[in-house]
């Protein structure tokens, strides 16, 4: 992948459709709408999202909400723009009536999303959608139907958005996901911190710990069911794992050594973390089943912030063995000596391997702070953001977007969450009830 200019390409292949979609037409050799971000998208693709059809009176408000959220999700990517509904020259009143493509062509919609909602007397909702490629005059993929409790309508809207995104983009979406983070309140000298979790768009915030001790940097397990985090509840930083559904938690290491910067391995069986011994910080791997720990770094320098490659074969981490904090890559089994990959002027930290395996995201400190990405061999370094203090990137499950935290300076300053895409575009602030830091993006929910 390269950066900087837009190439929007029509592709002849539809092989990327979700497995649930098996209509014969999906094998058609016509040219459906398909975006491929080979370089940064510059001109958002116009889409039309007419009001979802309400199949009965009970469905009226939900049909509006779901359609609006689907549109907001897609527009929020920066890849699409919604053609305002008052520019539409026709309405969709029946989910199954054939679409008159000329009505949508004339307003320059490239994609059309048609949906319907039926809420039953039992409170269950059935939501259907179709995606059309207006200029190819055909449906893109099968119609899909989702059902669930109507109070879970946001997840249904996110799932629809993911399906639409993946049909057009040829890669998974990131809407039906969650963000774990640290919610912060109180004065700067005595910040109160809580582990919190919310939907990717800021809805449904839940607090998983109280604010009685400092907690830091929650990290999801690969199945999204658990969080690792650092807590001072014993008076010293130690690493805990928590089952999100039940809230039950346990220490990962029985020994009282100070530990922090945990992450699960891609298969969830191990934890990488930093342990302090005789004042020096090194990286260890903990096998969760046996509890055995293995030391992976042996320098007298600070070695911390480890992150696995998606195949589990490699580790990228931060070390100041050269005199300043820099990024290093080594085999996860310790069989190769660490090799430095960062080479620019400045200090590097918090490396995170992309889920696609192609990039490492990091924090870079010069006079100001940046979120950046580089190839896993250190080439093609690119800084995406700049501020007084940007820190701690986390990848979307498709490797396309990063969320990080940005701190404003001074006595009243504090952190907020932001997202930015891999090309440095579409910088957005995520709304949180209080100051928020240390984000971690979940995998797609099931």
């Amino acid at each position, binding site marked *: 992948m390269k950066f900087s200019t837009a190439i929007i390409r029509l592709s002849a292949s539809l092989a990327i459709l979700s497995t649930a979609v098996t209509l014969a037409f999906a094998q058609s050799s016509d040219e459906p709408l398909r975006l491929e971000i080979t370089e940064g998208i510059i001109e958002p693709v116009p889409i039309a999202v007419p009001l979802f059809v309400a199949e009965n009176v009970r469905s009226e408000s939900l049909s509006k909400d779901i359609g609006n959220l689907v549109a907001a999700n897609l527009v929020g990517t920066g890849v699409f723009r919604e053609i305002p509904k008052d520019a539409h020259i026709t309405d969709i009143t029946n989910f199954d009536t054939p679409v008159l493509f000329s009505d949508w062509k004339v307003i320059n919609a490239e994609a059309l999303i048609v949906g319907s909602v039926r809420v039953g007397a039992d409170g269950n909702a059935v939501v259907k959608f179709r995606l059309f490629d207006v200029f190819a005059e055909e449906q893109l993929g099968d119609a899909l139907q989702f059902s669930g409790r109507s109070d879970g309508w946001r997840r249904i809207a996110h799932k629809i958005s993911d399906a639409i995104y993946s049909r057009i983009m040829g890669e998974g979406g990131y809407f039906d996901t969650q963000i774990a983070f640290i919610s912060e309140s109180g004065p700067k*000298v005595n910040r109160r911190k809580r582990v919190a979790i919310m939907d990717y768009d800021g809805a449904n915030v839940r607090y998983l710990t109280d604010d009685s001790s400092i907690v830091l*940097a929650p990290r999801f397990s690969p199945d999204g069911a658990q969080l690792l985090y650092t807590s001072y509840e014993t008076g010293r*930083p130690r690493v805990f794992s928590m089952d999100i559904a039940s809230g039950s938690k346990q220490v990962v290491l029985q020994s009282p050594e100070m530990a*922090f910067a945990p992450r699960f391995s891609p298969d969830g069986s191990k934890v990488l973390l930093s342990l302090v011994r005789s*004042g020096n910080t090194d990286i260890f791997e903990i096998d969760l089943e046996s509890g055995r720990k293995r030391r992976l770094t042996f320098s007298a320098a*600070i070695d911390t912030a480890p992150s696995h490659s998606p195949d589990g074969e490699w580790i990228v981490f931060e070390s100041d063995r050269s005199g300043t*904090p820099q990024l290093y890559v080594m085999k996860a089994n310790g069989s190769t000596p660490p090799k430095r990959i960062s080479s620019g002027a400045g200090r590097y930290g*918090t490396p995170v391997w992309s889920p696609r395996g192609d990039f490492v995201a990091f*924090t870079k400190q010069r006079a100001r702070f940046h979120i950046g990405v580089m190839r896993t061999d250190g080439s093609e370094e690119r800084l995406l953001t700049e501020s007084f203090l940007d820190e701690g990137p986390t990848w979307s499950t498709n490797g396309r977007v990063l969320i990080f935290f940005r701190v404003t300076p001074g*006595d009243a300053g504090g952190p907020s969450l932001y997202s930015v895409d891999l090309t440095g575009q579409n910088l957005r602030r995520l709304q949180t009830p209080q100051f928020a830091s240390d984000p971690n993006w979940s995998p797609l929910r099931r």
Partner: protein
Amino acid sequence: MKTPSILASAGLLLVLVACDSPHVSVEETIELPTGLDSEIGTEADYDRDTPAYFTNLIGDHVYFAVDKSVISEEAGAILDEQARWLMENDDFMGNVEGHADERGTREYNLALGARRASAVRDRLVSSGIADNRLQIVTYGKERPAATCSSEECWSQNRRSVTRVYLRSDD
């Protein structure tokens, strides 16, 4: 404890004095602003064997340069006094906190704070304090002492703090 109650307020003022002049000798009586005599204690009012004396007259904290954990000459002099006090008060334990300024990542600053706390502990141990009387804990950038976002505050946050507490009997 023999410390008179007025020392609660006196302690605050003496901390300010000590900040301005970290070399203040514990032998010297601190000059106090006039008109406040009834509110203010002096060196003579502190019992040498109290944590308040340790904190306010010796100084419970020392400062570090950017990214460094080297004990400066100035810091060493304070730590020598801390060690002397701990020698004389062997029913006390010490918890050495290491802190960093906000200019660094969370993880690096935790590691840096650990390194600073460890350097202080090593210095106290080399002055004769048993290492099982001393614990270290890093706070990274979690607990700044000063909140402005400039070097004036950052230099106060790159610090260690030695907290002394009575050994429990178990």
